[in-house]
């Protein structure tokens, strides 16, 4: 297979390149790269004029639902959504049934992904930190690491016990695996369905206080100071207090990283007044002050990563009473568009900084080699059309689930294709 990528602009934060660049691709490797290349008729041309070529994006927070909840999503549909959203890799969370707390499940996910995507989307399982994600006993972390798990998390549930969190930090530090915490002090959030604040007071919905998240992050930072070899990653940061706690911990040089979801920088708890259950997410949508703090955290580097927390649920599961609806929304196919529209168009981030948060930083956190865009290297690209104006249409999603609050939103900037080795998907 021979491809000619013509007319694109390469933005590669690793090498610092930001310039026009053509590529000749042969059998999934970069044969030649340079300005104003030409190709003979044996090459198929992909026209990328006014488009950006970036190192392949990774979404490090995805729920693939398989095994166990295939009615919501499968590895195949989740990976199709990832490719359509501009991701050549995803990390999938272990809250499946059975959970990813055993090496056989790690291998099942890896093998299924290879089979169904043929290498277009790399799937890196995140294993449970505790057996059955119950927060009681350590999962077989050594075996999980050896099988290829890239991180540990009980996501969906916090590791609430301070004693167990200490042991997870200690044990995981032997393998260099990051511990991803769903930071939530569970004794403070029982029954809560939205941010505790003026809107919950107004709407009479039980609240999830922001301090439930902040307390857990601060506690974990104190544990981390005690076990400095551990790696700590805060999932889906949602409050200004959490951003501040992470900023302090980074100033102290603790081994801490953090991610934010697009919904936490594009929506506030005011959206809940519709009682649309696609606004029911955990952590919940917060206030405009929190959104501003999260954006500032992205800008100043406190927050390293944008990850979608893609959480598919069927229409029937979501179309119920607000109190009964499951938490979560799909995000793979809107993440890049929301990020460009909300962060790059408004100059909070440069395009290069956004690419760092979608490729370089998350790969570093989960211990993957950075993507090298050099002659002789395997291709791993995301193609962006930064000025494309488009309207979100959930019916066109590749994901099996359509639970998105963004249906009908007009966005600017879109991922139009991905290339990973000899596989590619392209839809300008």
């Amino acid at each position, binding site marked *: 297979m021979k491809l000619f990528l013509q007319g694109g602009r390469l933005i590669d934060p690793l090498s610092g390149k930001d310039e026009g660049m053509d590529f000749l691709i042969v059998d999934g490797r970069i044969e030649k790269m340079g300005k104003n290349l030409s190709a003979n008729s044996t090459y198929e041309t992909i026209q990328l004029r006014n488009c950006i070529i970036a190192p392949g994006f990774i979404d490090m927070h995805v729920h693939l639902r398989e095994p166990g909840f295939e009615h919501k999503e499968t590895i195949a549909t989740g990976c199709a959504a990832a490719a359509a959203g501009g991701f050549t890799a995803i990390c999938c969370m272990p809250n499946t049934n059975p959970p990813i707390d055993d090496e056989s499940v790690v291998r099942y996910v890896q093998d299924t992904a290879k089979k169904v995507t043929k290498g277009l989307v790399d799937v890196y399982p995140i294993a449970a930190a505790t057996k059955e994600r119950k927060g009681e006993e350590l999962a077989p972390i050594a075996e999980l690491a050896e099988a290829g798990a890239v991180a540990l998390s009980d996501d969906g549930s916090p590791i609430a016990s301070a004693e167990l969190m200490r042991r997870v930090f200690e044990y995981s530090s032997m393998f260099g695996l990051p511990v991803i915490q769903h930071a939530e002090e569970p004794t403070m959030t029982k029954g809560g369905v939205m941010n*505790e604040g003026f809107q919950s007071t107004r709407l009479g919905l039980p609240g999830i206080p922001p301090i439930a998240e902040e307390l857990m992050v601060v506690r974990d930072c104190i544990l981390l100071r005690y076990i400095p070899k551990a790696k700590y990653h805060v999932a889906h940061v949602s409050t200004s207090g959490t951003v501040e706690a992470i900023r302090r911990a980074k100033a102290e040089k603790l081994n801490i990283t953090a991610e934010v979801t697009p919904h936490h920088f594009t929506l506030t708890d005011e959206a809940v007044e*519709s009682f649309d259950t696609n606004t029911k997410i955990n952590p919940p949508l917060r206030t405009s002050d929190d959104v501003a703090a999260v954006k500032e955290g992205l800008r100043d580097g406190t927050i390293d990563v944008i990850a979608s927390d893609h959480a598919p649920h069927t229409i029937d599961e979501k*179309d119920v*009473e607000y109190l*009964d609806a499951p938490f979560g929304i799909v995000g793979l196919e809107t993440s890049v568009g929301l990020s460009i529209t909300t962060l790059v168009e408004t100059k909070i981030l440069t395009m290069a900084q956004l690419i760092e948060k979608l490729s370089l930083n998350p790969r570093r956190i989960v211990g993957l080699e950075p993507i090298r865009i050099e002659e002789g290297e395997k291709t791993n690209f995301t193609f962006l059309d930064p000025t494309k104006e488009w309207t979100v249409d959930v019916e066109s999603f590749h994901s099996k689930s359509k639970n998105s609050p963004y249906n009908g939103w007009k966005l600017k900037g879109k991922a139009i294709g991905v290339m990973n080795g000899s596989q590619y998907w392209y839809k300008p």
Partner: protein
Amino acid sequence: MNLQSRHLLGLEGMSKEDITLILDTAESFREVLERPIKKVPPLQGKTIVNLFFENSTRTRISFELAERRLSADVVSFSSGGSSISKGETLKDTARNIEAMKIDMVVVRHSSAGVPHFLSRVVQANVINAGDGLHEHPTQALLDMMTLRQKYKSLEGLRVCIVGDILHSRVARSNIFGLRTMGAEVSVCGPATLIPRYIEQLGVRVYNRLEDVIPNIDVLNVLRIQLERQKSGLFPSLREYHRYFGVTKEKVDKASHPITIMHPGPINRDVELSADLADGPHSVILEQVTNGVAVRMSVLYLLGTAQ
């Protein structure tokens, strides 16, 4: 005269004109209720379903009575818990209502937003009879009707809502309605039962009855539920009664008589002393009678709108 909305989902955002129209219309139905024959024909041929997904006796009876007195055909359905516990989703329930050609739906549910959800999926008029901790608009309307009868106008009237504000849809609807009508509203209760940022709804917050009683005309006393003690929100009913219970001794500190209201059912001598509940300044039974009139008014205005 028509209301601005086809539904009664809540009092937040409802205009002063609409509230006044409901209260004025309720007065004429109140007059009907004093007649020997209490039935009038405006909703003849209309079918109303009362969907009570949460236990309720008096609100359901009050609605049924209002519906029958307007000559509507009435079907009532009661079930504790959510529709999910029966295996049928709310959406299916709504579709069934639609299929049965129901004209109006009165709904009570433990989840906030259910009337709003129904109003989007059915053609019928939807009336909120209490959604979770959110709103209970007909209760607040009957409270306002009762106060208007006594004080002629709600403008400048000083009303304090006492008790578990956090879990009270009655409090929320009263705050929205009374503020729109120009009343001064305050809330009083233990700090654990006052939701954060409630001042932003335009109310003053007190934690001691003694501080608020000298400066108000009306105490609307909410029912305290024992289960809140188990979730750590107050230590005991004894202590609650001592500090937040409305008693004759406390209201007598005011130089003027204070009107006593309660949405019922009363825990006598817990949140409200029996002598006050049955005393000369209690309007609690007026509230019950006005409840039927206000519900007739709402049903009439929505059911006969052009």
